[in-house]
């Protein structure tokens, strides 16, 4: 990759809140037009990285270029070309839905004759046209998120930063947000997304990095990572406790990996149905069994472990 393709490039990027290190010397590049994900548990350093890219947090060390510029010394110029959807909504609650977009158009110096039609389009895009003269407070969480997304598009940005865009939304609202983000991606807008939802990363990201404890632990497309860190399928078996250990011992050699959880046993295998058949042939009786495709969640838990890190 040549650097000119890179919309964001980071070398040994570090963020320190003494004595704590939030981001510990990470390297990554985001290419124009791709959807790039930062995946990781809470506290892994995703938001700190996003804030540095968004010019609202100066790096403590390393190099960071955003759209070819320095986010510290050229903050206004960089910010003019990016859109930000923060983790917490910070809409202007003293203004109406439409006024929120009008004011942000002013902050970005979008000419009035461009702003008017663009606001109409954006309200339509996020399905808020009917609420355009409503105050922000009575909107549902999903509507606020959609308005925030519309707001992030007001300057027709080259790059959109989305920090946990669907955290706290109900399933319908999440799917609507995903659908809108997917359409943006199809239009060629570069998206950078942080999330700890694997399905979100799998649906939206072309490429992602997994962060854990302030570092990048792996990088690739969702498919790559699943191939690299998991098997094609996972068989989830519930079985009586008395035979549980026997099953694990019996299957240990014939599948890639066996993982014993409190309520079930996970068998990582290329062919789940065949594995299940062989379990039954060996005389084990399962309470229930489920064959599913391996997901990013399997990758994620393999890499970052199952114990709760706070």
């Amino acid at each position, binding site marked *: 990759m040549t650097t000119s393709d890179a919309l964001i490039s980071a070398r*040994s990027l570090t963020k320190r809140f003494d004595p704590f290190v939030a981001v510990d010397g990470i390297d990554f590049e985001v290419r124009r037009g791709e959807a790039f994900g930062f995946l990781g548990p809470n506290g892994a350093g995703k938001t700190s990285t996003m804030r540095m890219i968004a010019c609202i947090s100066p790096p403590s060390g390393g190099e960071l270029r955003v759209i070819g510029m320095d986010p510290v010394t050229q903050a206004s110029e960089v910010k003019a070309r990016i859109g930000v959807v923060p983790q917490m909504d910070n809409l202007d609650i003293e203004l109406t839905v439409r006024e929120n977009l009008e004011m942000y158009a002013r902050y970005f110096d979008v000419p009035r004759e461009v702003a008017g039609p663009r606001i109409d389009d954006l309200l339509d895009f996020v399905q808020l046209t009917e609420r355009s003269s409503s105050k922000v407070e009575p909107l549902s969480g999903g509507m606020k998120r959609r308005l925030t997304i519309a707001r992030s598009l007001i300057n027709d940005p080259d790059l959109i930063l989305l920090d946990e865009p669907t955290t706290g939304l109900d399933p319908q609202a999440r799917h609507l947000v995903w659908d809108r983000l997917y359409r943006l991606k199809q239009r060629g807008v570069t998206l950078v997304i942080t999330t700890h939802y694997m399905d979100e990363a799998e649906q939206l990201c072309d490429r992602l990095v997994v962060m854990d404890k302030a570092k990048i632990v792996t990088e690739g497309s969702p498919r790559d990572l699943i191939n690299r860190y998991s098997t094609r399928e996972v068989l989830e078996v519930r079985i009586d406790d008395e035979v549980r250990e026997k099953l694990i011992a019996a299957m240990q050699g014939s599948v890639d990996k066996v993982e014993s959880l409190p309520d079930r046993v996970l068998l990582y295998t290329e062919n789940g149905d065949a594995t299940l058949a062989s379990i039954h042939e060996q005389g084990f009786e399962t309470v229930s069994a489920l064959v599913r495709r391996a997901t990013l969640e399997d990758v994620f838990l393999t890499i970052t472990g199952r114990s709760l890190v706070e």
Partner: protein
Amino acid sequence: MSVEFEPPPQVYPRPTFARARKLVERNILAYRHYWIAFTTGFFEPIFYLGAVGFGVGQFVDRIPYGGLELEYAAFLAPGMLASSSLNGALFDGFFTPFFKLNWQKTYDGMLTTPLNISDIALGEIIWAMIRGTIYGASFLLVMLGLGLIRSPWAVLALPAVMLSGAALSSGAMVLVGITKEISSLDKVMTLIVVPMFLFSGTFYPVSLYPGWLQPIVMATPLYHSATLLRDLTSGAADPGTLVHVAYLLAMFVLAATVASRLIRKRLIT
């Protein structure tokens, strides 16, 4: 990897008027929804002028001031004029920015646009100054109607109200930078605003205080604001009046800079 990096130099982008102006536009838009709240700051000094100036004033002899003899209402009115700029500073230099910073997170959103902290701080100061100036201008009209303006110097009272508003609003924004808790609002009112309003030569001459106390009172911005305005509306202006102008100008520049840095520390982490 434990490579140690040189911390990058601190950069404070300078505010531009073109960007700061957007805050004023935003506040005008917002106050279209809250215009009744906007009118409150106008009435307060009028009420004081009525109750204290014309009520208590009946029992007060003329007050010697800068070689003149002023009846009490003419002495008090410029003090209330100064406090009308204090109202603008208090409402939109302190209360609303306090909530925008700590609760509404309005500034976090604005910071993702080309606006920087210094633009936001300057914009809010300019707006609070405008609000105080609107109150001051209306109050000046009231003074004119009541015959409390005694000198052509009073044409400079409006720019002086603006200067006073800029200085007091910048001071208020410094308080925004150092307060986080809702209880801070009470502390600011009880320990700073109310004593300054009552004791800074607004209601009676500072010469009544014992010698050791006078310099303390004379260090407050409202003292300089009230005295400057009194010099202008009464006609007692002399070269010494410029000291008040210098104080207020210096306070504006200094406090606006300090406020930007303090708020920056809160938002840019």
